[in-house]
């Protein structure tokens, strides 16, 4: 690839458009460019189903004139189209309303050292197609050796290489490269009319950190077959243990509720709760965008604000909302480096682990449900209400006795945070939003 030349061209293009915008009358302008390459292979029952390989680019821009904002984006990077988009955006800004909170962030004096974040693995571009296909095939093959597995959704291996460029009229101009690779497998067990299914995956920035095929396959098999011959249970209120994947799901909902955008829009039940208790003293939640090599790590956010470590909840007290520049100005706070452009996104957003092993948490449970999967939507940030279809494992006297399906769990995030009775020591950064095993004192489980 002509990587060097392409790189030169993209930063130049970004700078050119910034100066064009200024010439056309924009008070402020921001240009971002993504240059991506992706490879993915899906295999099923030992054969390739799909093989996709492609490179693509996209450009986004924001123009502010007299405190009025207009956005534009394009996958057509011809100069003619881009120049027209810049001109249109400057004209279109006049149709928005003036908004004193709009505008780009001022240029930060501090910048994160990009190399120290270890976002790019050169090994990934050296993998050849055969090697990548073999990984997917091997993962599925190992799983299908288990006779309890009756069908396969297939295994996939994918890689991505992305270059991001950001320039703005306050003098920001930086770029960084990142890589991702992922191996995943979905399985079914049981006969057609009593099928159960689940999957497992590993996604990393560095190829050598990826879980090997054996591990992905064993986990997918274990997670699938443990649901065979489920029972329904009676409607009741019981203690519920969340597996780490389920804690991650809960944290994802918490993120929506503490995002500065939801707060200033008053669409979150946590609006107005800064410096107040929102959970019990076990609850510590962090957003950290500068942890080395993790999936939610980045040197700067979509507006060029350096990423940082932000304490969101400290011993149950809500300390910070996560903000882009706009939400921060609205809330009289500082941007936390979580901008996606118009919105906010988590960097590495996690619940801090406790000291108890997950095995100990389960063995101390007299009677209750281990939540292993949920299905559906049923999250309401305005109230914090949660209501979802659920799959679980029923526990009696500290031991799993049978799987449970076709139940729903319902509760309220505010109440859940106050009722976390145990936090496991098993935090793994498998995704940008994550958490360890937790035990909740009581949730309503609806069944028969």
């Amino acid at each position: 690839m002509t990587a060097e030349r392409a790189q030169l061209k993209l930063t130049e293009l970004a700078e050119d458009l910034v100066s064009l915008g200024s010439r056309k009358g924009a008070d402020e302008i921001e240009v971002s460019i993504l240059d991506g390459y992706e490879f993915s292979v899906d295999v099923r029952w030992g054969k390739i189903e799909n093989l996709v390989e492609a490179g693509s680019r996209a450009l986004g821009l924001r123009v502010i004139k007299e405190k009025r904002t207009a956005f534009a984006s394009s996958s057509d990077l011809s100069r003619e189209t881009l120049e027209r988009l810049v001109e249109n955006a400057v004209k279109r800004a006049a149709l928005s309303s003036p908004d004193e909170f709009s505008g780009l962030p001022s240029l930060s004096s501090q910048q994160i050292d990009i190399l120290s974040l270890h976002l790019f693995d050169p090994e990934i571009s050296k993998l050849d197609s055969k090697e990548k296909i073999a990984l997917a095939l091997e993962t599925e093959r190992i799983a299908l050796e288990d006779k309890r597995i009756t069908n396969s959704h297939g295994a996939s291996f994918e890689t991505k290489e992305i270059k991001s460029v950001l320039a703005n009229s306050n003098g920001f101009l930086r770029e960084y490269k990142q890589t991702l690779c992922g191996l995943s497998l979905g399985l079914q067990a049981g006969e057609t009319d009593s099928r159960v299914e689940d999957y497992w995956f590993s996604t990393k920035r560095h190829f050598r950190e990826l879980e090997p095929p054996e591990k992905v396959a064993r986990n997918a098999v274990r997670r699938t077959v443990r649901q065979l011959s489920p029972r329904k249970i009676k409607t009741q209120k019981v203690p519920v243990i969340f597996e780490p994947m389920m804690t991650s799901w809960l944290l994802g909902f918490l993120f929506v509720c503490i995002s500065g955008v939801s707060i200033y829009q008053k669409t979150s039940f946590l609006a107005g709760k800064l410096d107040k208790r929102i959970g019990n003293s076990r609850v510590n939640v962090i957003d950290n965008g500068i942890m080395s090599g993790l999936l939610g790590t980045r040197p700067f956010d979509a507006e060029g604000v350096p990423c940082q470590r932000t304490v969101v909840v400290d011993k149950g007290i809500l300390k910070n909302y996560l903000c882009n520049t706009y939400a921060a100005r609205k809330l009289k706070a500082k941007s936390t480096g979580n901008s996606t452009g118009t919105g906010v996104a988590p960097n590495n957003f996690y619940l801090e682990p406790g000291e108890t092993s997950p095995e100990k948490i389960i063995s101390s449970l007299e009677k209750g449900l281990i939540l292993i999967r949920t299905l559906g939507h049923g999250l309401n940030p305005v109230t914090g209400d949660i209501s979802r279809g659920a799959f679980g494992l029923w526990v009696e006297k500290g031991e799993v006795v049978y799987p449970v399906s076709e139940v729903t769990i319902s509760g309220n995030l505010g109440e859940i945070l106050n009722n976390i009775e145990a936090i496991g020591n098993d935090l793994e950064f498998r995704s940008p939003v994550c958490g360890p095993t937790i035990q909740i004192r009581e949730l309503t489980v609806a069944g028969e």
Partner: protein
Amino acid sequence: MKGNSSLKFEDHFQLSSADLQKILSLSLSRGGDFSEVFLEYKTYNLINMEEDIIKETAESISLGLGIRVLSGEKTGYGYTNDLSIKGVKKAALTAASIASSPRIQAASPLKLSRLEHNFYPVLRSPHLENLEKKISLVKNCYSAAMNLSSKIKKVKVSFVDQTQQVRVINSEGLDIRDARPLIKLVCLAIAEKKNKREAGYSGGGGRVGLEYFDKTLPPEEIGQDAAKEALELLEAVLPPAGEMPVVLAPGHSGVLVHEAVGHLLEADFNRKKTSIFWDKMGKKVASSQVSIYDDPTIPHFRGSYNIDDEGTIPTKTLLIDRGNLTGLLQDRLSARLMNEPCTGHGRRQDYTFIPIPRMSNTYIDRGEHTPEEIIFSVKKGFYAQKYQGGQVEDSGKFTFSVSSGYLIQDGKLTAPVKQATLIGTNIDILNKIEMIGSDLEFGLQTGTCGKEGQSMPVNDGCPTIKIARMTVGGQN
């Protein structure tokens, strides 16, 4: 705001038909048995209003092409937005590499097909309408919601219009085009009383021009509906929990047929035998009152299309006929491998994706009962009215999240209920359908369905339906 947005579709691609013919042949150069190029130019406009101001507008352009090669059950795919001959050839060779057969076929000469139908004639393509006109729709919707009650504390309105132009050519000589308008006006309203806060939502649109807001659904009505829902939820109680008779409201409850039935009748899941339906073709899977269709040809509906994303002219497809499973939603690949006719349900989000079988407008056909007699037949139960969405897995287990509904007591709707979840297994629930109303309606023209990372505009509908027993998840 002039510019090359008025260019003819072909002019966005510097590729002649002769070039494309060569690309099709190049993509078969490793022995593939079918090749296809999907060319797409999409424009998109957005307006957001909140806190009483027009916060932002956005314009977006997407231009690119995807090249697909089939070789037996295998698919090779390359896409690019580098539309130089060199860039396109590279994508073609990437797709071609899936095959490795010594038998090289030539692509048939392209023959332009002209469509005799148009399911979405509009007075003027929405992306050509001026922005001021769209902004006034947004403002009218916003004020109607805000002014309904002093308890409405927050309103957010978005307007989106999109025009997607596609051209599909393939190695069988097909050369066919479609231009698909799509608009959507949505409103979120938040009501507050003491310390309680609730959200209501409404919206409308479809493959229509702006005249829709004069004739079919005024923006004021959308705003008022969202505000009314939020106000009503302030008075709502938490739902009961457990198994009980459930009555589904007409229209919005179409999400049930979409999730519980539609997905698992997409041909890929049946070809791969992962769907619970794969071994049940011709068999009884539902109560004999139940007939289900998927119809991509309903004029102006969000889920409709003149051609699917493989260039096939779509057909209204009967999926379940009076309780018996009769049809699947077929794309080209599954139809060929299953030796069935293609129903024209191969869709893709954009040129970066491989087409897969998808729903369009899916609905349960009308029955004989009046909605009143259905509700009257329930002594104690739950009436599900509006939904946040649903999800299904191949085993047939599904959930819906109900955002608002009512308790049914002694044959009447009583207290409003919020945030409940319905859960079940599809064949079990289909067989428990006891009564179907004569009042077929469709849901809001704002729905989007996700599958394998691809979002597609869809719609769904149903009449009032009574399910004998179903698990309702709630806190009481």
